[in-house]
């Protein structure tokens, strides 16, 4: 029988010195002469290091891109959308079955998340969901069901946006969603309601000044976003850690499980606003036009939403919402110019 006391003697001399070791050996010897009648006493299990914090639920390392990056099916200008109905809100739209369904229900169901500070987040003080996207969704509800508060938010992880639209779990997704040709194959989009640029967020003084410094580093991005593809394209040497929500990226950055976060400046500004030791660095990696996602078969809703966006551009609502949330990005550049298909 190996005496546990001699085991601890082997572990401790550096801390407690030889006197302790000697005493422990004496105890060990007396234990052995006592004939080892006791059952194996407290062998302290070696449970390894304790310094590693847990990861957010669903955090994984993104697989490297398979094959050469595809820019999606070429669909011409992906940002071109359907023209609004002739009467811009508050004029009512022409009769339509799909719009009537929402109006009878009396609520517009909008998918977004609570972890994108400045765009959609849960205000800790009130518990309400606030932000640029949330306000845009409220304006849509004002035009569709007559009351900006008759909007119901469903929390979606980024990767859940397209399935939720395809299953019609939500009427629309207003959630920092970039318009791409690839996504256009599955869902429809409104006209562009915000133009963002992908950049890098890092800890001040970490030496990271742009995408070039990310080689061999770990970078966080939300699962199922265009940011993942972009960073893998721009910096193939970086390991991309994906998480369900943007808020989780701030968590893993603060827990030092990643070295940087890379996504749209609009989202990064929201993360930086919660931690004064972070800064947005580097040049723009890409331009990210945001659109409101809508089910592909619901052309009437696309026209209605585009009409509503047109109203926001004209009556100054867009600028008001920008000023309320995004002044940190600089003065309002004015609403993006819409492109129409027809």
């Amino acid at each position, binding site marked *: 029988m190996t005496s546990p006391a001699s085991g601890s003697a082997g572990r401790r001399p550096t801390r407690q010195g030889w006197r302790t070791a000697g005493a422990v050996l004496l105890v060990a010897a007396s234990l052995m002469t006592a004939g080892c009648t006791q059952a194996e006493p*407290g062998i302290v299990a070696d449970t390894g290091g304790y310094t590693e*914090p847990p990861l957010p639920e669903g955090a994984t390392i993104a697989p490297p891109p398979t094959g050469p990056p595809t820019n999606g099916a070429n669909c011409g200008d992906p940002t071109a959308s359907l023209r609004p109905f002739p009467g811009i809100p508050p004029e009512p739209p022409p009769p339509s079955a799909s719009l009537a369904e929402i109006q009878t229900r009396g609520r517009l169901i909008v998918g977004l998340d609570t972890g994108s500070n400045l765009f959609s987040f849960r205000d*800790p*003080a009130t518990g309400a969901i606030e932000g640029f996207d949330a306000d845009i969704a409220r304006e849509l509800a004002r035009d569709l069901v007559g009351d900006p508060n008759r909007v119901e938010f469903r929390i979606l992880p980024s990767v859940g946006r397209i399935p939720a639209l395809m299953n019609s779990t939500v009427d629309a997704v207003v959630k920092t969603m970039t318009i791409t040709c690839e996504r256009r194959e599955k869902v429809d989009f409104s006209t562009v309601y915000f133009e963002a640029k992908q950049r890098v967020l890092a800890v001040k003084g970490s030496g990271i000044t742009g995408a070039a410094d990310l080689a061999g580093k770990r970078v966080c991005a939300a699962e199922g976003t265009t940011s993942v593809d972009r960073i893998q394209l721009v910096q193939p040497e970086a390991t991309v850690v994906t998480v369900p929500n943007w808020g*989780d990226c701030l968590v893993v950055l603060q827990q030092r499980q990643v070295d940087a976060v890379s996504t749209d400046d609009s989202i990064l500004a929201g993360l930086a606003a919660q931690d004064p030791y972070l800064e947005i660095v580097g040049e723009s990696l890409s331009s990210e036009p945001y659109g409101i996602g809508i089910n592909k078969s619901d052309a009437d809703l696309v026209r209605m939403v585009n009409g509503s966006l047109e109203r926001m551009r004209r009556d100054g609502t867009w600028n008001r919402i920008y000023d309320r949330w995004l002044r940190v990005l600089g003065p309002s550049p004015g609403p993006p110019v819409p492109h129409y298909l027809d």
Partner: protein
Amino acid sequence: MVAVREAPSTEPLGDDLAPRSVGSADPQGRYGRLSEFLRTTPAKMLALGTALIVVALVAGTVAAIQVADRQRTLDTLLNQVEPQANATQNLYSSLSIADAAATTAFIFGGIEPAVVRDRYTQSIGEAAADLIGASSGIIATNASGQRLLTELSTGLPVYTGLIETARSYNRSGYPVGTAYLREASSMMQSTLLPIAEELHSQQAESVVQNQDEFATPPWLAIGLLLLSLIALVVGLVLLAGWTRRMLNPGLILSAVAIAALLGWLLIAGLISSTSTGRALEQGARPLMQLTTGRILAQQARADETLGLVRRDVKGGYAEAFGTHLARLEEILAEYPNDGRVKVATDLVSQAAEAEKDWSAAHERVQRLLDNGDWAGAAAVVTGPGEEDSTAHFARADAALDDAIVTTRSELRADIDRAHSTLYGLGSGALVLSAVAAAGVGVGLWPRLREYQ
């Protein structure tokens, strides 16, 4: 060359032959004398006496060992294994309640309600105390239990650290608090609680195992004592024949001592093993079902609140809620139908009733969510109304908790009875068998002396 002697001397041969003839004749004489001796009455008496003494002493020692073994196990069960199993059950509850409170505090905005925060800190304190209760005695004996406890004890401070980070961010008005809360809750639900559950089922299992061994009477000791008694009666009859006297009083004393011990062992052993059996049927096994039921209720409650906080549209939480509640319903429905279990059945039916109401309230929640009415659903899940989920869950949980307390005291009373009926039997067995052995010696000695 070797010289050949024509006339060999006879002397050495004669010398050689003489001892050989003596050697071959002497053993025959010795064995002959021995067998002759064995046929004599004193030898038979001596052999009979030795056999009777050995049988009585062996039977008494075996009885003493078996009884001591039982007493020791029941004592460990009463003072270590069962309290540990109970502590692990409380540990699971405390952790689960703490996480539910931390999550609920975030459902509605603003500063968390004082009562919810108090519930959280109280439960975390209880969980830490339960860890000590669950680990007392486990360290030395159970390597896998020790590993689970170590994981829990090292995980708990990490969890509370994350909750406090979430709380500070929340207090500063930063939404990243929600992300920290989600990380903490995910750690609790997918790491810590499963460990606590495994720990509990291990301990509950060993409560049952410990008793299972001793639900039968000590047959070996009973058989040996019976053998000893029969041998003593046969010895009495034989001795009466050999000595042509009345029954030997010493052997009668021995027979009485062994009979008394046999009677004592039969009565105490049967009462003890019946009590152990009852502790199993009315205590340990129902207790396992009840604690599993309570854990399921708490899991379902966590699914309900977490699904709401995360506004999960994928339906993972709704599905988990359904599974957990269905298993709970099954356990509660089977419980009283067992027929043999008579403890706490009224409390279990109360829990079953509350479970049905809860299920109905949850259907209302689901309908509201289907219509997009999150605020309405949140009001049903966390609201104070009597027809809301919180009230029904609290009723089910309280009824199950009461049933656990009742069943547990039944279990402990039975084990205690099983333990205390054996009191004094171990040393009594040794004393009585020694009396029996002495009786044989005292009874035979005067008869043997008559032959000297």
